[in-house]
């Protein structure tokens, strides 16, 4: 590294301008304050008993089960979808991509109404699902998983597609010319290369599924033990039992925070030296 010609130059390079620092500090406070406020209002002395009530534990278990199921389904269908979007230049690809990512920006309640139109009792597929599989999705746990998958899968698709695009197809082609089957080449060459993105995408999708509210309450309703996930339980407890709502909120924030923290390096790419400080 070259020596810097003067001390002032060093300072200018290493310290961001005051205005930038000030605006960034305001942004940090903007994000941090609501969480600090929440932590401050939690009735800590009762926290454990509020968290371990039957109602809380039931919602927590249901949330974990449904969000994990939604993540697995997202991986199962999302990776092939990302692959097709990244590798094949078919006509209308942009439209298909926009369609598959629409639920990312849609108000989730609208997503719930749209799910009715497709899988509800009077939806396009509703009758067929019931006659063929005896499946009624609205007001069922499967309906919760469906709503969560609908909202969460785009996070995985976006992340994995970006990674696949950044990959040099040469490596995969080389493996194939050396006699590897398509599946073998994918498993041994492509998959390891996109693994960080896959994990990051799955973690983001999982966190989003865990926090899903609007599509769930619209499509699956709200019944303790069957469709009342943690976010629904928090929303309803806000009126009847604010202490419990706060404790559950903090638990959800804690889980999401841990996911984002664990994901940092993968999401941001290669860790830099300043990241390690």
């Amino acid at each position, binding site marked *: 590294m070259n020596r810097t010609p003067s001390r002032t130059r060093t300072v200018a390079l290493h310290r961001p301008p005051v205005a930038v620092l000030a605006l960034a500090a305001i942004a940090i406070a903007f994000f941090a304050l609501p969480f600090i406020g929440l932590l401050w209002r939690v009735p800590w002395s009762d926290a454990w008993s509020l968290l371990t009530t039957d109602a809380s534990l039931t919602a927590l278990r249901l949330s974990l089960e449904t969000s994990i199921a939604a993540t697995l389904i997202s991986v199962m269908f999302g990776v092939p979808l990302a692959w097709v979007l990244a590798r094949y230049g078919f006509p209308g690809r942009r439209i298909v991509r926009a369609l598959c990512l629409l639920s990312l920006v849609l108000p989730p309640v609208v997503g719930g109404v749209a799910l009715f139109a497709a899988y509800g009792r009077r939806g396009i597929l509703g009758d067929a699902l019931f006659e063929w599989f005896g499946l009624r999705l609205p007001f069922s746990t499967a309906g919760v998983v469906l709503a969560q998958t609908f909202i969460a899968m785009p996070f995985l698709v976006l992340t994995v597609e970006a990674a696949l695009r950044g990959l040099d197809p040469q490596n995969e082609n080389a493996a194939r010319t050396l006699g590897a089957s398509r599946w073998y080449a994918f498993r041994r060459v492509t998959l390891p290369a996109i693994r960080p993105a896959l994990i990051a995408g799955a973690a983001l999708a999982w966190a989003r599924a865990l926090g899903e509210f609007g599509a769930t309450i619209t499509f699956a*309703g*709200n019944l303790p033990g069957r469709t009342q996930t943690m976010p629904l339980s928090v929303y309803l407890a806000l009126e009847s039992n604010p202490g419990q709502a706060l404790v559950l909120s903090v638990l959800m924030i804690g889980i999401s925070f841990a996911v984002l923290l664990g994901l940092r390096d993968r999401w941001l790419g290669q860790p830099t030296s300043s990241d390690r400080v």
Partner: protein
Amino acid sequence: MSGTITVSATASLQGAFTNITAAFEKANPNASITINFAASSTLASQIMSGAPIDVFASADEANMAKVSEANLIVGTATNFASNSLEIIVRKGNPSKITSLADLTKPGLIYITCGPEVPIGRYSAQVLKNANVTVKPASFEPDVKGIVAKVSAGEADAGIVYTTDVAATNGATVGIVIPASVNVIAKYPIATISTSKNQSLAQAWIDFVLSAEGRSILQSYGFGAL
């Protein structure tokens, strides 16, 4: 009268209060009224958390009492309307429901609200009065959630206010609940003590209580008191 106020009103008042507000603003061109519609319980907790609300209209006396006990209302609340309950079913009554007992038909999807929402408590009371036990498929956040799902045909029935059925303009039908087991909901209204424009708030309440206000309420199916 001039200025701006925000009214928090129970979801079942949506049609009537929207209309009353239009009439009030016509008579008072310098006044602007914003209405925040949700379940009474949601509104009560918003007000108690410090939401800048000028008037509260609840679908029950319990939620008004919560706000009143927090010393947040001016004087005492006035009851301004009543509402009775009906079984709501979709147009054509496809599940052929004629009584509360029919709600126990196997496979029938009955939805309600939680006990903190007035309609949830009232419907539980009605079912108890009639000695009928029904397992709900969902506890919707407010009465509009019940109406929306029944009129969309995703749920078969619920118990809602008479006025909610009327507001769907024929998309749903109300099955009468006998007076002997029915509950009459009384709607109280009050000015919130933290209001910065209490004179406008009071003028708006007076308008709701006036002959014109009452006739609008009646046109939406509310009963007089």
